[in-house]
C-alpha cells in the first residue's frame, strides 16, 4: 500500500474520479494541493482571474459536457468569492465540486488570517458540504461529494480541507475506492407504477395536452425518451428557460419558451390546455406567473427527481418522483402496451395553436439609423445554423432575446443562469464550455452591463487561444431594469444609464484579443462573419443597439399565463 500525504491523496482520488480539468485560484491554504497538482499527468489546471470566475467556469464545463465541474480555491476571500457562483449552480441544479482550503484545524475558530466559516457561508447555496477534520477524511469526502453532486437533483458540493490535513509531514495509506452507499441519501430513480399508469392514461385522454419541458430533461439526459413520447402522441412542447434545447427548438412540435418573456403561442397553449405534462421543472415564478391563475383547466402531471419540488408552488394532480429518463421510459412502455394513438381531437388543438402562432409575437419593425437587438440574434442564428454552436448568456434583455430568437437544435447548447439570474456568468461559462469541448464554436451573447462583471476572465480565454465570440448588445443602459422603469415608473430612469462605458474594442485590444465595432445594420452580418473567421483568440463584437427596444411578450405581474403585453401594446 502506498503511503501518501493528504494533498497527494486528494489528487489521486480526483484522477480516479476521471477529473481532467480543474478551474482554480491558489492561496496560502491550498499550496500543498497545487504542488501535488504539478505531478499529475491527468489533470489540467486552468488559472482563473477571480474565484467567482473559476466556479462559473467549472459550471460552464459541467453544463456543456454533463460531467462534474471541479473548482479549487483558497480559504477566506477565496471561498467567499465563490458564493455567487455556487448559488448560480445551485439555482440551476448543476453538478460541481468546490474544493476550498481552510486554515489548519488548530487555528479554526481563532479568527486566523484568511479564516472564514466556509461551511456556514455556503450552506444555504449548496446541495451539501464537508469539512475534513483529519487527513483521512479527504478521500472519502471527495468521493461522497462527487456522488452527491452528480445524482438525484444535481447540485454543487463543497469540500473544505484545512491546510494541515494536506501536509507532506503526515503520510498514510490510500484507501481504495469501493461501492458508494450513503444510508441517509437515496434518490428515487423509478416512478411509482400506479402513478405512471395513471399518467399514461391521462395522456391518452387529453384533447388539449401540452408538454412543459424543464432543465431536468437536460440534466437527466431524458431527451430521446421525451422525443419518442411526443412523436407517438403528436404533442405540442413548450419549455421553460432552463428547458431550452431539451426538445429540439427547430422541430415543428416545439412551440417555444413559456413564461414571463415566453412566446404568445406558448403561454396561450399552456393556459388553454387540459393537461400539462411537466417534466424536470420546479414551476418557478418566472415560468408560471401567478400560480393561482395558472392553467385553470388543466390537470397537472409533474415528474421530478426532487420530491420537494412537487406541489411546492403548483399543485400536482399526478405527482411522480423519479429520474426523468427512467420515468419517461416507464411511461413510454405503458403507452406501447396501451397501443396509444394521438387523441382524435389533437388536430383541432394544433389548428388552434397555429392560429396563436399566426399572431407573430416576435415580429418587430426596423428603426431608422439604429440596430434592433433582435436583429443581432436573428443574424447570428442565420450564420450559425447547423454548426452546433454553444451560446452562453449573461442576464438581462440580451438573455431573453437569445432565448426567444435563437432556435436551439439540441441539449446543452444554451447555457444561461436561469434560477439565480447572475450577471457576469456568460464569459466564464463560455471559457468552461470551450475547455470541455475544444472543437465546438462557443459564443457569448452579453450586454454592456453584464460583460463588465467578470470581464477579467478574458485573460483566461486569451491564454488558451480560445476562439470565443463575445457579442455585446451594447445599448448603454441596463435594459431590463430600464424597461420596467419605462413602463411602470413613468420613465424615471434611476441608475440604469451606464454613463462612461469603456471602449469595448480597446478592451479587446488591451487583452490582445480582436475587437470589432458594429454601428450600422448593413455592416452587422459582415462584422459577425469577420468575428467567425478569427481562430486563434477571442473576439469581441460590440454591436451598438437601440436603447428603447423592449423584450416582448411580457407577462403582467400577478396575472395568468395569458396576461401579456405584446408588440401591439407597446410602442417601440
Amino acid at each position, binding site marked *: 500500500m502506498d503511503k501518501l500525504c493528504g494533498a497527494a491523496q486528494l489528487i489521486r482520488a480526483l484522477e480516479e474520479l476521471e477529473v481532467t480539468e480543474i478551474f482554480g485560484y491558489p492561496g496560502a491554504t491550498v499550496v500543498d494541493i497545487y504542488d501535488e497538482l504539478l505531478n499529475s499527468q491527468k489533470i489540467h489546471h486552468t488559472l482563473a482571474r477571480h474565484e467567482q470566475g473559476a466556479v462559473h467556469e467549472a459550471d460552464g464545463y459541467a453544463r456543456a459536457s454533463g460531467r462534474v465541474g471541479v473548482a479549487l480555491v483558497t480559504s477566506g476571500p477565496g471561498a467567499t468569492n465563490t458564493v455567487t457562483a455556487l448559488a448560480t449552480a445551485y439555482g440551476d441544479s448543476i453538478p460541481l465540486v468546490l474544493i476550498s482550503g481552510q486554515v489548519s484545524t488548530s487555528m479554526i475558530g481563532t479568527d486566523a488570517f484568511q479564516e472564514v466559516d466556509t461551511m456556514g457561508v455556503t*450552506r*444555504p447555496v449548496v446541495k451539501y*458540504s464537508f469539512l475534513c477534520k483529519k487527513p483521512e477524511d479527504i478521500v472519502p469526502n471527495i468521493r461522497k461529494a462527487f456522488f452527491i453532486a452528480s445524482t438525484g437533483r444535481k447540485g454543487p458540493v463543497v469540500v473544505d480541507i484545512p491546510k494541515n490535513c494536506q501536509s507532506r509531514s503526515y503520510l498514510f495509506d490510500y484507501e481504495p475506492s469501493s461501492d458508494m452507499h*450513503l*444510508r*441517509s*441519501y437515496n434518490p428515487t430513480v423509478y416512478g411509482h407504477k400506479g402513478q405512471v399508469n395513471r399518467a399514461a392514461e391521462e395522456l391518452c385522454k387529453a384533447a388539449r395536452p401540452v408538454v412543459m419541458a424543464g432543465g431536468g430533461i437536460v440534466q437527466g439526459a431524458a431527451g430521446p425518451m421525451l422525443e419518442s413520447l411526443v412523436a407517438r402522441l403528436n404533442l405540442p412542447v413548450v419549455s421553460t428557460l432552463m428547458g431550452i434545447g431539451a426538445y429540439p427548438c427547430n422541430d415543428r412540435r416545439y412551440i417555444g419558451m413559456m413564461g414571463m418573456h415566453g412566446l404568445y403561442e406558448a403561454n396561450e397553449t399552456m393556459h388553454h390546455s387540459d393537461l400539462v405534462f411537466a417534466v424536470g421543472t420546479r414551476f418557478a415564478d418566472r415560468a408560471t406567473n401567478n400560480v393561482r391563475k395558472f392553467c385553470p383547466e388543466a390537470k397537472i402531471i409533474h415528474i421530478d427527481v426532487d420530491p*420537494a419540488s412537487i*406541489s411546492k408552488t403548483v399543485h400536482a394532480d399526478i405527482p411522480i418522483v423519479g429520474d426523468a429518463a427512467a420515468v419517461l421510459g416507464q411511461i413510454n412502455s405503458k403507452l406501447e402496451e396501451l397501443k396509444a394513438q394521438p387523441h382524435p381531437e389533437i388536430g383541432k388543438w394544433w389548428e388552434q395553436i397555429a392560429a396563436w402562432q399566426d399572431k407573430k409575437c416576435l415580429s418587430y419593425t426596423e428603426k431608422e439609423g439604429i440596430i434592433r437587438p433582435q436583429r443581432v440574434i436573428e443574424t447570428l442564428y442565420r450564420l450559425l445554423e447547423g454548426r452546433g454552436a454553444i451560446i452562453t448568456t449573461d442576464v438581462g434583455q440580451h438573455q431573453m432575446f437569445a432565448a426567444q430568437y435563437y432556435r436551439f437544435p439540441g441539449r446543452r447548447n444554451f447555457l444561461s443562469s436561469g434560477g439565480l439570474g447572475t450577471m457576469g456568468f456568460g464569459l466564464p461559462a463560455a471559457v468552461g464550455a470551450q475547455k470541455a469541448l475544444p472543437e465546438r464554436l462557443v459564443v457569448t451573447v452579453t450586454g454592456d452591463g453584464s460583460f463588465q462583471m467578470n470581464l477579467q476572465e478574458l485573460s483566461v480565454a486569451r491564454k488558451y487561444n480560445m476562439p470565443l465570440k463575445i457579442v455585446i448588445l451594447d445599448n448603454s443602459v441596463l435594459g431590463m431594469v430600464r424597461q420596467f422603469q419605462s413602463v411602470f415608473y413613468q420613465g424615471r430612469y434611476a441608475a440604469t444609464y451606464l454613463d462612461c462605458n469603456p471602449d469595448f474594442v480597446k478592451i479587446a485590444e488591451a487583452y490582445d484579443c480582436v475587437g470589432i465595432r458594429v454601428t450600422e445594420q448593413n455592416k452587422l452580418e459582415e462584422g459577425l462573419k469577420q468575428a467567425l473567421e478569427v481562430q486563434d483568440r477571442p473576439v469581441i463584437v460590440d454591436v451598438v443597439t437601440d436603447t428603447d427596444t423592449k423584450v416582448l411578450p411580457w407577462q403582467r405581474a400577478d396575472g395568468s399565463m395569458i396576461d401579456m403585453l405584446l408588440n401591439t401594446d407597446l410602442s417601440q
Partner: protein
Amino acid sequence: MRHVISILIENEAGALSRVVGLFSQRGYNIESLTVAPTDDPTLSRCTILTTGDSDEAEQITKQLHKLVCILRVSALNEEKNGSQERELVLIKLPTPNRNVREDIKSLSDIFGAKIIDVSPETYTLQYVGSSEEVDTFCETVFKMSDVLEVVRSGVLGIARGNHYMHS
C-alpha cells in the same frame, strides 16, 4: 396548526445547523427543538415543534427529507395510531417563609412534580407531562408564587403502538 416533526439525523458536525438553517431560510417557525444521540451513537433523534398550515407542514417534511444528512422524517401528529408527547420543566422559586414552602410542597405533590433542589432561599421543581399539562402546571405555580427561573425542555415525541422509526 401545531406540528410535531421527528427526525433521525446523522450525528455529524454541521448537521443541526442545516436543519435550523432550512427553517430560517424558508421562513418556517421553530417553537421548540430537542436533539440528542440515539442508542446508535452515529445517529441523533430530533423533535421539532412548528406551526403552519398543512401545505407548509408537507413542504417542511419534504425539505427535511431532502437534506443529505437526514435519514428519517415523520410528522407525529399524522401518525395513524397517534403519538405521545412529553415535555419537562424546571422551575426555581423563592421560599421566603414556611407558608410558601408548605404550599409549594403540597402543590407539587398534587401535580406529581418533584422538588429536586432545596436551598434556604429556594426550591427547584421538576415536572414532566404533555405540553398542555406543563402549561397548566406552570400557570398554577405562577399564580401561587414568584418565580426566579423557568427552563422547559421542548417537546419529545414518539408514535403510539407498533409504529416506530427505525434506522
